[in-house]
């Protein structure tokens, strides 16, 4: 025990001597590269993004091309159709690849939009406090009350199916988390002396908010965004699964899961492969988010691994 405590102390001391809270970008990348979770998560994401981006130029079948010959429907995986074919004779492999495009696009855009809304509202609330905070926090809590998926479902149903409507629905249901996180960060950050100091040196509100408060709060936002993308993929797939997401024939993992469900008995590959791709991608983003939390949190520095 004593040995462990001593080792811990030494590490704490070396952390303090290394300068404590703030690290340079190069240092951060180096520590990210040493974190297994970050490396694995990042690799998975890069792989998925590459497939999504390269899907149109890869030598694969057209994902929407139907082949209604009796002997082409619901075929098991073979050298020709790696992941088999679905009930309309379409190549599942190609559809999974194209599905990554939709899922990643929707999830990334939705998280970006909710992040912007969340940052602006949360920063305003936390920075100004008082009545502004009261009003914005009330709105945040109102949205926060509903589980994001239910809210997204309600909005998606109201707006109708379609790529941009799904993005909008997810953004509306997801921004409150960012806003809350940002508000809390801003609240503690605005009391810091460097904000006061920049004010004493003549900075205005906008400059203090966006140049001094925001960059100091960015680490937890990055973590939240990474995990948020994973969440958004789940929400998007669930919406498509329920038929209020992207419209067919756009290949979407959720939609594929749903249509394959009917054939789970004899042709399980129709929904298994999109399911695996989904789990794989979500795992990637969750690993990255978790790993980044450790890397960006100075208290963890040198204490683990």
């Amino acid at each position, binding site marked *: 025990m004593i040995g462990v405590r001593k080792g811990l102390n030494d590490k704490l001391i070396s952390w303090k001597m290394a300068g404590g809270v703030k690290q340079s970008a190069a240092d951060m990348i180096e520590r990210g590269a040493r974190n297994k979770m970050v490396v694995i998560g990042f690799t998975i994401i890069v792989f998925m993004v590459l497939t999504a981006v390269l899907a149109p130029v890869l030598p694969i079948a057209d994902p929407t091309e139907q082949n209604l010959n009796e002997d082409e429907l619901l075929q098991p995986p073979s050298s020709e159709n790696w992941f088999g074919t679905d009930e309309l004779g379409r190549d599942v492999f190609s559809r999974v690849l194209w599905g990554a495009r939709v899922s990643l696009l929707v999830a990334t855009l939705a998280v970006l939009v909710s992040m912007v809304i969340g940052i602006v509202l949360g920063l305003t609330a936390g920075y100004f406090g008082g009545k502004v905070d009261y009003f914005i926090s009330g709105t945040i809590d109102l949205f926060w009350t509903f589980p994001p998926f239910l809210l997204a479902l309600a909005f998606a149903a109201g707006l109708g199916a379609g790529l941009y409507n799904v993005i909008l629905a997810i953004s509306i249901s997801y921004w409150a988390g960012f806003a809350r996180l940002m508000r809390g960060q801003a609240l503690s950050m605005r009391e810091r002396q460097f904000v006061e100091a920049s004010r004493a040196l003549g*900075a205005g509100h906008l400059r203090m908010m966006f140049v001094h408060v925001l960059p100091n709060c960015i680490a937890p936002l990055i973590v939240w965004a990474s995990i948020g993308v994973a969440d958004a993929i789940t929400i998007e797939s669930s919406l498509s699964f329920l038929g209020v997401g992207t419209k067919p024939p756009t290949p979407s993992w959720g939609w594929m899961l749903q249509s394959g469900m009917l054939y789970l008995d004899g042709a399980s590959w129709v929904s298994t492969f999109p399911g695996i791709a989904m789990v794989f991608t979500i795992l990637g983003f969750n690993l990255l988010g978790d790993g980044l939390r450790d890397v960006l949190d100075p208290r963890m520095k040198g204490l683990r691994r």
Partner: protein
Amino acid sequence: MMPVTKPLLEIKGLTTQFFIQEGTVTALDKVDLTIYENESVGIVGETGCGKSMTAFSILRLVPHPGKITAGSIKFKGTELTALTADQMRGVRGQRISMIFQDAATALDPVFTVGYQLGEVISLHQNIYDKAALDKKSEDMLKLVKIAAPASVLKQYPHELSGGMKQRVMIAIALSCSPSLLIADEPTTALDVTIQAQILNLLKDLVRTTGSSMMLITHNLGVVAEVCDRICVMYAGRIVEDAETFELFANPKHPYTSGLLSAFPKLGERKEELTVIRGTVPDLMRLAPGCAFVDRCDKAMAVCRKERPNRVEVAPGHYVSCHLWTGGETSD
């Protein structure tokens, strides 16, 4: 003795109050203070006596729920309390600058020193050219005697030592050649050897740049070293105001004498330090008389009833105490 110069900052009857649920806290109570050009004035007093609040009031940065409720602050003839928020922003950093107690927390941890210096310069002087900004920033770092300024520009605050950070802070504060520099306990967070370096630096810089300085501290040794004149504050009031030598030689206010005798002298053996008995009065329930009356050995009947006026007991030596307000009040 002192060259006749124009007043740079004239504060008259400045009152700053905080309106909290339990009542009204009078943080500054009719403060009169004049700072002349090219002069260093020390503001001394114990914690909570209103030293920092005087600085924040001058910059109009009194935190909520505080307000300046009365008085005037004239800076080069301009009434600061009447300026708009935008005009006031132009004053901060450019004409009146401030150095904070702990440079480690007053510098933004996510930006390089160069960025933070450049930010203030471009903000007030509308210089946006990167090379020009860097050149100017480097000159400022040279001015505060930082070795290898070019490399320090690229460093983050956490890479610098405490003394270096305070030097950077001073460089930032002086980068737009302000007429008045307010230093709020600039050496409290530093060890003694660095303290001396920083104080000497401040002294030199004020002399060479021709600006004035208001040095806030609770350390009498610090003011004695740097300041031309000292104002002693107690419970939000300035109780004595005199040139440094005069104040140390002839303290008139019982609080000032108390402070000076509480200050341990080098080479003197003492088992226990002299203290001023009692504690600071509650700023929410100040009696009408002198704020120091409960702790004063020389308190008289009048001290409880009337607040003493400020009188000039010697040329340039002002004191607010009934002992000196004239024969009619003492018995």
